């Protein structure tokens, strides 16, 4: 049971990194990124492949952040010329393209068979719950560092400008500031976070296949930040925590509710999350963490 709880906590922390990245991009800057999972995938494959070449994880995980961040750069350049809704489509297309590329470039990624035997974090230190806790501790430390950095950004002149972009881009231009550079930085930074999350994921699960990187992952992250409260760092944290609790907790619900098969339960879970999203959008659009306008 301890191992199970630790596993949930690790996955929740990985999702929290994803949520923080999206909070920076959408919540603070207003960039509708529907392709978050693409950067998650790039991070996962980068770190997995490099580590299988024998590179230490202390290098491959930062490398995952760099490749995911670099991948965001051209996307940013192309997409900044587009309106919000087109940007959303481009990013969704990008993440699907990433998935198709890792599916078909077998020489590199082993295609649908995926990459097994990815080295674990702290492999040499210990086995069992000790290793789990060490992994959890590391990811927690990285998440806390990300939260700290995000809070610094929110309270800074940089944070003011990206929120101004979200609220009214043309007004900012009229005041002599070019939004493009800010948007690209935000895209790179948020995607680098997704890349780190992907690397942690790969080294935790130890086996990655293209099917783990479907758009549903992106939309789980969206659900988390909408429930928690868009535009707030605390919203990303609380929303992700609740979503993970619900997704995992509902596994046990099946024990109490008779006559529901595993497959039905999986669909039911998503149905309930969908219903929650609708209710939140109608009755509490600011999310659980309260007034969107106050930090």
């Amino acid at each position, binding site marked *: 049971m301890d191992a199970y709880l630790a596993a949930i906590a690790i996955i929740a922390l990985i999702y929290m990194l994803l949520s923080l990245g999206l909070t920076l991009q959408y919540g603070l800057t207003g960039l509708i990124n529907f392709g978050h999972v693409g950067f998650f995938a790039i991070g996962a494959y980068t770190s997995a492949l490099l580590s299988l070449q024998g590179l230490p994880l202390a290098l491959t995980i930062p490398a995952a952040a760099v490749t995911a961040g670099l991948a965001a750069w051209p996307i940013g350049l192309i997409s900044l010329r587009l309106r919000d809704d087109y940007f959303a489509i481009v990013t969704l297309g990008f993440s699907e393209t990433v998935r198709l590329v890792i599916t078909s470039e077998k020489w590199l990624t082993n295609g649908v068979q995926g990459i097994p035997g990815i080295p674990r974090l702290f492999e040499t230190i210990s086995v069992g719950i000790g290793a789990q806790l060490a992994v959890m501790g590391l990811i927690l430390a990285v998440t806390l560092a990300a939260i700290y*950095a995000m809070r*610094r*950004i929110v309270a*800074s*002149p*940089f944070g*003011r*400008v990206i*929120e*101004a972009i*979200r*609220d*009214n881009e*043309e*007004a*900012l*231009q*009229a*005041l*002599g*500031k*070019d939004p493009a550079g*800010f948007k690209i*930085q935000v895209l790179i*930074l948020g995607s680098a976070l997704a890349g780190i999350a992907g690397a942690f994921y790969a080294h935790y699960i130890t086996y990655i296949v293209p099917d783990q990187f479907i758009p549903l992952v992106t939309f789980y992250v969206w659900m988390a930040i909408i429930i928690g409260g868009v*535009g707030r760092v605390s919203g990303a944290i609380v929303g992700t925590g609740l979503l993970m609790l619900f997704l995992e907790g509902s596994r046990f619900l099946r024990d109490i509710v008779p006559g529901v098969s595993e497959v039905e339960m999986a669909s039911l879970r998503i149905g309930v999350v969908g219903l929650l999203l609708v209710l939140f959008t109608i009755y509490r659009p600011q999310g659980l963490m309260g007034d*969107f*306008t*106050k930090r």
Partner: protein
Amino acid sequence: MSLQVTNISKAFGGFKALSGVSLEVPMGGLVGLIGPNGAGKSTLFSVISGFMPPDEGAIGFDGRSLDGLNPAGRARTGLVRTFQVPREFAHLTVRENMMAAAPGQTGESLVGLFLRAGKVREEEERLAEEVREVIRFLRLERVADEPAGKLSGGQKKLVELGRALLVKPRLILLDEPFAGVNPVLIGEIMERIRELNGRGIGFLVIEHDLEALTRLAPQLYVMDQGRILTMGAPDAVLADARVREAYLGGAV
């Protein structure tokens, strides 16, 4: 040494929004631009501020051509516009709206933000003081820490003016500063504009409220159907038969 708009034309499909518009605002001048709805006033502002490319014509400011500059580049030359429908940063407070407008902040770069925290703090303190003064000047103290989205229309116009001031403008293009503003506040805004003009900031003001603008601006341009009809002192302009015909529909 002025804003020089020369022979600007702009068509949307078959509709000529602007045909050969020329006007000039001397540095430190206070010039009004009036005209009925659809005369092309706001289109002209969009062209001058770089949000819309003209089909023909040239814009010069302070002796240099603005033609190659984007909106942000034009604003950085000291030519700052406001919008007809206020475009406040709704989720930022009034104070933050103005702080966001100030140029050259170290903390706007991520490197500066994390590696030169001391300098950022210093700049923030200096900027906060500057913003306090602008807020005091515009009598916005009471709402300084409210989200700008919650303000009244008139207060939002003042926030826009305040933001423009933080850019250190030499000429402000004001788009209908009195539209939808209550009469008491109109007087206030006018007073502030005069005061700023006295400090050497030039204004080109679009206004629908004929009466307010004739009180404010010593020189008026009148637009109708995409053309400049006439220009001159308010009395002379209002006495012009073509202006009465176009603007007042011959009713006066």
